[in-house]
C-alpha cells in the first residue's frame, strides 16, 4: 500500500515572483490524484517541490516522517527511493540505451544479479509496451516512447509514490487514453499513491480519485473528484469546459476591465450541464483497486462536509453499483 503525502502551507517564490502560496493538501495513501491548472501556474514546480528538487520558502511536505523541504539532505535522498517521478519528456540519460536507463536505479540501489535485473527490466519494458526497442538510444525514439520509457524507469524500484508530470503532452488522444488505462492498471497492481499533473481534460475526467486545481497562486480546491467536477467556481467551470469566457486569460489571468467587458456581452449559449464520466476500471484480469475500496469508506465518511452537488454526485456514483465498469477501453492492459 502506498504512503500518504501531507503538504502543509507550502509557499514557493522565485526571487520576487510568487508562484503559489499556502498550498495545503493530503494525497491519500494509494489513491490516484490529479492536479489541474492552466499552463504556467507552477504545476511542475509543485511536483518538484514534493520530491525535494526545489525548495519552497515555507511549509512542509511530509512523506513517511521525512520533511522533503527542511530535512537534512541525507534523509531526503533516502526518502526519494520511495518515489518514482516520470518527467515531462522522460529525462532519460542520453548516453545509455533504454535498457540501461531503466536498469539504472536497480544497479545503483540494489545488489541484484545481472540476470535478475534483466528479468525485472524486461517485465517493465513489456508493461509500457516497448519490447524490441530496449537497445535503442533515447535520441533514436519518438517522444511518446521516451515518455513511456521514463515511466518504466520510474516504476522499476516498486515505488510507493508515483508522480507523473504531464503524461499526455505530445501524445495523440489514443495514446493518451491508453496511458490513462495504464496508470489505473498500475495503481491496481502496485497500489501506489499517484499524483498526475496535467491540463488534459480526458485524463482529469476518467483517471483520478481526487482532484485539485492551481490558479492565481492558490490552490483553488482539492478533494474527491466529484467536488471539482461539480464545482461552480468560475475558474473551474471555465477550465473544465475549455471556454474563452472566464477569469483565465491568455496570459495567466485577465484584468478587471476585460472581465467587465466580457460580462456586458451576453453569453452565447448557456453551458450544457457537466456530465460526470465514470472513472476507469482496471483492465479485465487485474485485481480490484484496493484504493477504490478505501476511498469509498473515506469519501462516505466525509460526505456531510461536502457541497450538496458533490454529495449528490457521489451518492449517485456509488448507488449505481460502484464497481460496474461503464467505460472500458478495448485495449487491454499493457498494449499501447
Amino acid at each position, binding site marked *: 500500500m502506498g504512503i500518504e503525502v501531507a503538504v502543509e502551507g507550502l509557499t514557493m517564490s522565485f526571487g520576487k515572483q510568487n508562484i503559489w502560496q499556502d498550498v495545503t493538501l493530503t494525497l491519500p495513501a494509494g489513491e490516484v490524484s490529479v492536479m489541474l491548472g492552466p499552463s504556467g501556474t507552477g504545476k511542475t514546480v509543485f511536483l518538484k517541490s514534493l520530491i525535494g528538487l526545489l525548495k519552497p520558502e515555507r511549509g512542509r511536505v511530509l512523506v513517511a516522517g521525512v520533511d522533503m523541504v527542511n530535512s537534512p539532505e541525507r534523509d531526503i535522498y533516502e526518502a*526519494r527511493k520511495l518515489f518514482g517521478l516520470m518527467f515531462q519528456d522522460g529525462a532519460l540519460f542520453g548516453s545509455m540505451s533504454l535498457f540501461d536507463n531503466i536498469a539504472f536505479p536497480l544497479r545503483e540501489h540494489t545488489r541484484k544479479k545481472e540476470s535478475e535485473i534483466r528479468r525485472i527490466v524486461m517485465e517493465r519494458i513489456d508493461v509500457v509496451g516497448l519490447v524490441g526497442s530496449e537497445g535503442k538510444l533515447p535520441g533514436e525514439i519518438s517522444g511518446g516512447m521516451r515518455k513511456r520509457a521514463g515511466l518504466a524507469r520510474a516504476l522499476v524500484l516498486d515505488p510507493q509514490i508515483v508522480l507523473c508530470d504531464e503524461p499526455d503532452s505530445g501524445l495523440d488522444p489514443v495514446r493518451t487514453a491508453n496511458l490513462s488505462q495504464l496508470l489505473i492498471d498500475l495503481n491496481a497492481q502496485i497500489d501506489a499513491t499517484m499524483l498526475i499533473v496535467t491540463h488534459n481534460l480526458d485524463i482529469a475526467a476518467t483517471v483520478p480519485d481526487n482532484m485539485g486545481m492551481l490558479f492565481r497562486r492558490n490552490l483553488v480546491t482539492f478533494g474527491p473528484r466529484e467536488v471539482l467536477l461539480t464545482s461552480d467556481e468560475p475558474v473551474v467551470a471555465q477550465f473544465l469546459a475549455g471556454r474563452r469566457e472566464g477569469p483565465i486569460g491568455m496570459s495567466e489571468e485577465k484584468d478587471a476591465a476585460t472581465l467587465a467587458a466580457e460580462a456586458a456581452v451576453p453569453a452565447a449559449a448557456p453551458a450544457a450541464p457537466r456530465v460526470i464520466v465514470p472513472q476507469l476500471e482496471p483492465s479485465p484480469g487485474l485485481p480490484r483497486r484496493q484504493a477504490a475500496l478505501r476511498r469509498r469508506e473515506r469519501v462516505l465518511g466525509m460526505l456531510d462536509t461536502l457541497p450538496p452537488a458533490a454529495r449528490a454526485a457521489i451518492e449517485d456514483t456509488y448507488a449505481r453499483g460502484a464497481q460496474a465498469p461503464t467505460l472500458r477501453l478495448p485495449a487491454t492492459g499493457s498494449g499501447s
Partner: protein
Amino acid sequence: MITGGLRHTGRLFALAAEVGRSIFRRPFQFREFVEQFWFIASITILPAALVSIPFGAVIALQVGSLTQQLGAQSFTGGASVLAIIQQASPLIVALLIAGAGGSAICADLGSRKIREELDAMEVMGVSPVQRLVVPRVLATMGVAVLLNGLVSVVGTLGGYFFNVILQGGTPGAYLSSFSALAQLPDLYISEFKALVFGFIAGIVAAYRGLNPRGGPKGVGDAVNQSVVITFMLLFFVNMVLTAVYLNIVPPKGG
C-alpha cells in the same frame, strides 16, 4: 551585484567542500573516472607538447639574451629551467586542462542539466556530485599532475636545444648551472601547482555546468564563463603559491 558575486563564490566553495567529502563516499565511480581520465588526457597531451616546445624556446632565447648582456651566460641553463618548471609548465597545463578538458566537462554537465538528466538522477536518490563531478575533478587533477611532468621535460629539452644549438651556449655550462640553481623542491612545487590548478579547473567547470542559466544558450555562456573564471583564478592562485614558496623554501644559489 556584490551579493550575487559573493553568493556564487560561496556556492563554488560549497561545491568544492562537497566534492571533497564525496571523494571518500563509497561506491567510487571507477569506470567513470577511467573514462574521463582517458578522455581529458587524449585531448590535452598533443597540444601540451606542441605548446611547450616553443614556450621553452622563447624563455631560453629571452633569458639567454639577458644573461649575455649581463655577462652571465653560464647561468642561462639554470634560469631558464627554473622558469619553465616552476611557472611555465603548470600554467601551460592549467590553460590546456581548463580550455580543453574544463570546457568539455562544463558543456557535458550543462547539457545534462537542461535535459533534466541530473534532476532525474537526484530523484532516483543518486547524487550527481558523487556520481559525475567527483570522477571528473579527480581526472583533471590526475591528468594535470602527469601532464605537468611531460610539459616540464619537453619544455626543458626545447630550451636546451635552442640555447645550445641556436645561441651557441655550451652544453656543460647549461647542465652545471642547472644543477647549481635548481633543486628538488622546485619540482615538488611545480607538481603541487598542477594538482591545485587541476582541482580548480575541474571544480569551476563543474560548478558552471551544474548551474547554467536559461536553456541551451545558457550552456554556451556557462562554458565561456567557466574558462574565463578558471583562468583568472589560476593566475591569482599561482601568484599566491609562488610568493609563499619563495618565502618558505630557501633558494639554492643563495
